């Protein structure tokens, strides 16, 4: 399998996965969304809330704020030596104390650990008018998107098949497909329709060009055919700021690898035992 990046920065990664399969691409997508550990606020202790929002609503909104995590700085609660009660090695405490008038934003969450804090400072939580007050204490823990969407490290994460656009001899360069294409990837070159150089990956496989071609009365078969390559995929991974996009991909792959290793080790153990019994 091969991977080729076209965009790779902290927020977003776009890459092509080659010589792969549908099952692997989907597994990688699911692993990146649901199996990469991140941090989110789980428990909120509200001392004072005279804002327009109910306590539950406020807690929910605070829970959804992405928390920037330095890798491996905390461990999941269920594997911690404290037994899930909550200690500095598996959770981090935030305090928030704001008086109106004004907007409560994510930067008002003050972390006890300087390495950990909200990924973006300007996420609105609740608007306060004069005299309203919010005082609370929040505890963030590490978990996975599989448990709740607030632990997903990604906002947009998906893939599409690599498009294969072929123009055959039936094409008479009428240009209807060029007009119809919503992504504007087609042009007329040398008396024939062709894909503009470097724009093939923009194709959304909508096949409006095929339909436009058939509507010209060309017959049963269109002059332009759009198919998808089943072994190549175009991925988009957009992080919410809690982890760099590269780490999300890395940890997604690492999840599949760890599970394979674990299963192989278990089977090896079992088949080793049964072999002993046969002896």
């Amino acid at each position, binding site marked *: 399998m091969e991977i080729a990046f076209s965009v790779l920065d902290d927020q977003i990664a776009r890459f092509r996965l080659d010589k792969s399969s549908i099952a692997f691409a989907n597994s990688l997508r699911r692993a990146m969304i649901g199996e990469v550990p991140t941090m989110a606020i789980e428990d909120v202790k509200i001392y004072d809330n005279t804002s327009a929002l109910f306590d539950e609503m406020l807690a929910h909104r605070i829970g959804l704020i992405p928390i920037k995590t330095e890798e491996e700085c905390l461990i999941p609660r269920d594997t911690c030596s404290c037994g899930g009660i909550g200690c500095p090695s598996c959770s981090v405490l935030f305090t928030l104390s704001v008086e109106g008038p004004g907007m409560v934003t994510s930067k008002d969450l003050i972390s006890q650990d300087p390495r950990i804090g909200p990924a973006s400072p300007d996420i609105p939580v609740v608007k306060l008018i004069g005299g309203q007050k919010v005082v609370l204490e929040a505890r963030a823990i590490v978990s996975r998107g599989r448990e709740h969407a607030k632990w997903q490290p990604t906002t947009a994460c998906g893939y599409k098949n690599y498009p294969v656009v072929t123009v055959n001899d039936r094409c008479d360069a009428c240009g209807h497909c060029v007009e119809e294409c919503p992504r504007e990837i087609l042009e007329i070159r040398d008396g024939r329709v062709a894909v503009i150089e470097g724009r093939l990956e923009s194709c959304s496989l909508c096949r409006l060009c095929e339909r436009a071609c058939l509507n010209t009365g060309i017959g049963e078969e269109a002059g332009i055919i759009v198919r998808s390559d089943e072994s190549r995929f175009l991925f988009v991974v957009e992080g919410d700021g809690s982890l760099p996009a590269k780490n999300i991909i890395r940890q997604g*792959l690492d999840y599949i690898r760890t599970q*394979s290793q674990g299963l192989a080790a278990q089977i090896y153990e079992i088949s080793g035992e049964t072999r002993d019994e046969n002896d």
Partner: protein
Amino acid sequence: MNIKILELGKNKARLEIQGEGHTFMNVLTEEILKDPGVDVARYLIKFQFSDPELLVTTRGNRDPLDVVKDACGRLEKSCNELLDQIPAD
């Protein structure tokens, strides 16, 4: 990860793989099916919260557990290949 063997014959194995979901099981069964000695590879998650049950049957003398082990090895290799290609920081 814990597994439970529900049935084990010469050409058939039924395993319960605890704590897994579609994310890993789907890619695993597809990988097992790439083996020419495999007849059936399916998994079933009976209810939303139950552990998946993997069924593998093989042809000839191929051991069903070996088939799963080999598929895991191939998946691990693919992941390693991809991880090596991700540029370092």
